[in-house]
């Protein structure tokens, strides 16, 4: 069963002559343990799709199910709880709180959700250790490199009992080595059972996904087939 499902989801901004269809009739399903990339150019509706999937915004029409629950039937408080407990967000510009250390940033959502501070801190440390950042735990964001900041953001997005990871251009500001490290972490989270959606315009990022969905002018126009074994790449015709 899919953890995230979008059925015929549309979002319209403005009214009358200024009306703009950000996304139209989008269907998308993401199973636990799988990574789906949504690829499209700027303005194709990628970020709108992500904010609707993450319950940050309501669709104009259509249905969104997260963990089998229809979002439109949930109260604002229930949605906020769902976001704190089950959904992790990663953004291009990290969105870390500058006045908090790395471990405080990671453990904050757990504390907000009522976990005692000491336990939240321990879970935050464990998440940082898993991403090789234990020695950066007491550093503030401005003392970290871009790659480290994004790893902290991923630790924050996957800490606790998260089921869904939503990432918007997560390696956009990073070089290719750090970008690859970020995608390896997203993939590792999926291997632990999370469902993940990464929206991006970059093919190198999208190529880490199990499935790539192509968005054009707000519509899903295509998607990749499951890739064959990479072994076939190692048997080209001999060179001349």
């Amino acid at each position, binding site marked *: 069963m899919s953890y995230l499902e979008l059925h015929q989801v549309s979002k319209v901004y403005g009214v009358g002559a200024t009306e703009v269809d950000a996304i139209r009739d989008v269907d998308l399903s993401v199973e636990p343990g799988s990574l789906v990339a949504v690829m499209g150019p700027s303005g194709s509706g990628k970020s709108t799709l992500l904010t609707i999937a993450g319950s940050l915004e309501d669709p104009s029409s259509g249905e969104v199910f997260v963990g089998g629950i229809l979002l439109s039937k949930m109260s604002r408080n229930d949605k906020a709880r769902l976001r704190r407990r089950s959904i992790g967000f990663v953004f291009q510009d990290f969105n870390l709180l500058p006045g908090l250390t790395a471990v405080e940033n990671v453990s904050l959502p757990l504390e907000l959700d009522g976990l005692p501070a000491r336990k939240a801190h321990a879970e935050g440390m464990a998440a940082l250790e898993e991403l090789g950042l234990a020695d950066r735990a007491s550093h503030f964001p401005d003392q970290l490199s871009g790659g480290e900041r994004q790893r902290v953001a991923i630790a924050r997005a996957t800490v606790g009992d998260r089921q869904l990871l939503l990432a918007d251009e997560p390696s956009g500001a990073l070089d290719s080595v750090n970008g690859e490290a970020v995608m390896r972490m997203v993939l590792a989270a999926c291997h632990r059972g999370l469902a993940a959606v990464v929206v991006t315009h970059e*093919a190198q990022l999208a190529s880490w996904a199990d499935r*790539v969905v192509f968005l054009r002018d707000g519509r899903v126009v295509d998607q990749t087939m499951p890739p064959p074994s990479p072994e076939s790449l190692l048997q*080209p015709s001999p060179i001349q």
Partner: protein
Amino acid sequence: MSVRHALLALLSEGPKYGLQLRQEFETKTGEVWPLNVGQVYTTLQRLERDGLVESDDAGEDERQKGFRITPDGEQELSDWLCTPPDQTSPPRDELVIKVLVALELPGVDVRDVIQIHRRYLVELMQQWTRLKEDEARFDLSLALVVDAELFRLDAVIRWLDSADGRLKRASAEPSRTVSPAVPRIRRGTGVRR
């Protein structure tokens, strides 16, 4: 890919036999470029003819011959490493031609044609990325080869994305029609100095 210079590079490490050269070539290129043993011996004969390698006098049996690089061979290898491959001439890219043809054909949506090629290339990149995920972390040669292929495919997709964007803008501005005229590009003949 120059087998000739790859063999010179391997021989610059010390004298080697033909079969050994073949095995080392495949290992050091991440086993992405298979090489048959006939190619190895033909290339070695040419290198010997050109005075770039020398062999032991081991009679007619090529497999018993050891090969070593000569000073001229060392110089040839050094020159080759520092000579940029010719990238001044735009290649006659089949994909570019397909998109240009699609642009002219009535009843063909060129953006749909672009999407077909984009999907194929992304699927290919997924395969290369799997290879990196599974193996390349532990094999530097393979990681470098896979990265090179991923960047090459990525560049083609970026061109498709750019073409898609241009076509979208062009269709939104009917007064500025897309010119069918492709500018003449002078094809260079050598490396830019």
